[in-house]
């Protein structure tokens, strides 16, 4: 019982000490003059040279150290200049970016993609690397209705996988205030590349043999990348894959061999295809940290 009483006494004593300490702090601040915040200047055009959200790079996120004489008025945030540095440097770093994507522009068949990019940044804005992805197909409701509504079976190919070599360029770098509480740094990236798309026909008649194609594929992309940590980014990218694909020959007979079907399809059923895809990716950077080369 005594021990419990002793414990409670310790708690109460601590509470009392903390309150006295706070009271002294506030009193001290009051005698020191307190925050003398001038009224907000909302005149358009006033003090434009202090527009500190300028995106110029090579800047410093830390406030200037101020020395306060005893008894001098305390500084408020309006007296302190804060100029942030570029938040993320990519030069001479490797980016490993696992990604998930979806095709956007085919009303009959949708593909989900899982893969990733491996890029090396030659400079902060130029990179080259490899890309690879595996596809999973899903037929849309429209595809299933074509038979019911028009007595037709669509001629479709499914995507199997893709790999390629890419170049990247960062034409834009920006930063946002999130609710004017946090600063989010981001950049705009464009990519172009060349690779190979493996596709396979979906035979119109159930049970018929299928053949595959290796299509040389050009790729153009545009993406936005948000910088989260020194080694972590999040990206949303749109890419357009362009290739010439071979579809199942319209006049295929049940007796045709698959080699014959492929030959006939190649001769009469080649078509230029544009596949627009949206990707979400997570960028992991190696080495995980970087150092600024310019003085603050």
């Amino acid at each position: 019982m005594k021990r419990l009483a002793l414990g409670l006494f310790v708690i109460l004593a601590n509470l009392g000490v903390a309150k006295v300490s706070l009271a002294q702090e506030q009193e001290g601040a009051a005698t020191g003059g307190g925050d003398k915040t001038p009224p907000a200047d909302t005149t358009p055009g006033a003090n434009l040279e202090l527009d500190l959200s300028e995106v110029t790079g090579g800047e410093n996120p830390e406030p200037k150290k101020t020395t306060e004489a005893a008894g001098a008025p305390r500084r408020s945030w309006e007296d302190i200049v804060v100029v942030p540095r570029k938040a993320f440097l990519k030069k001479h770093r490797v980016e490993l970016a696992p990604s998930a994507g979806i095709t956007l522009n085919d009303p009959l068949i949708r593909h989900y993609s899982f893969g990733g990019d491996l890029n090396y940044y030659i400079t902060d804005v130029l990179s080259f690397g490899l890309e690879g992805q595996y596809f999973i197909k899903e037929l849309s409701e429209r595809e299933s209705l074509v038979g019911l509504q028009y007595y037709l079976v669509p001629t479709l190919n499914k995507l199997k996988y893709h790999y390629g070599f890419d170049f990247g360029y960062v034409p834009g770098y920006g930063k946002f205030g999130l609710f004017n509480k946090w600063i989010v740094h981001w950049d705009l990236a464009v990519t172009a590349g060349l690779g190979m798309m493996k596709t396979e026909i979906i035979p119109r008649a159930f049970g018929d043999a299928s053949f595959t194609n290796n299509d040389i594929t050009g790729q153009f992309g545009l993406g936005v990348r948000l910088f989260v940590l020194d080694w972590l980014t999040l990206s949303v990218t749109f890419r357009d894959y362009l290739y010439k694909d071979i579809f199942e020959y319209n006049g295929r007979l049940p007796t045709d061999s698959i080699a014959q079907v492929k030959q006939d399809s190649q001769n009469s059923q080649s078509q230029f295809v544009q596949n627009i895809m949206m990707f979400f990716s997570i960028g992991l950077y190696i080495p995980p940290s970087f150092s600024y080369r310019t003085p603050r």
Partner: protein
Amino acid sequence: MRKIVALLLGALVCLPTAARAEKERKSPLTDAPVIRKRLELRDKRFEAGVGVGVSIGQDFYNALLVMPKLAFHFTDWISLAVVGGYNVTPNWKSSFNNDVYDKLIEPGKTTIKTPYKDEAAPTMNHIKYMAMGQVEFIPLSGKIALLGSLFSYFDFYVLAGAGIVNLAAAGTAPTGDRLDGTKQCGGTDPAQCKANVGTELMGNFGVGAHAFLTHWMALNLELRDLLYKNNASGRDVNGDGVTDANDLELSNNWIFSLNFQFFLPGKAKISR
């Protein structure tokens, strides 16, 4: 045992108190906004303009829309807008439409397949016009440097709202007789085909961005999904052999738009 409980209790109470005491010793930067002297390009300003929108992934007819937009920004981060859209290309067929139409049978030929070309085409519908209201929430606003030399103010927002869409079709379902004496799909009772035309309520959800070219003019990009009930083909969907209201299904209709928007008053405020 009681001693341990008492000590734990003491520690639990002491730690937050000590932390609070530490917190009370404020840095002068504590209350500072992350961006100072910031141009508030939206706060208490009207926004009006016009642009073009294009549909993405429509089944039978793509749409190129003229899209006027009027908005008022209550604060720098929230606004209310009304948007209209009028389709100026009602005959712009999608590639899927062309593919289907090419495979259908010409009228006059004998076949067990239906529909014939002249039965399928009139019941495929397209967007005629739309009107919607939307609330825009703008959590992100800032600047971008393009090629290291061109600077632009930018914002990103999400939007949500509701509206109406008017759907039209190229014709009406044919009601005559085929060569073999059977009724065309619109002439059966109940009808086997019927274009879904008229006005539907719709939900409006999307994202957008402003890229300010000057303090009073911006490029406005929006990507929205319009959700409404539709039967774009005007044919049976649920397999009961009849085309009626039971065949209407909620559909996603993506529209990408690009507008030139003008802001009033012409001068923007600057924050502390």
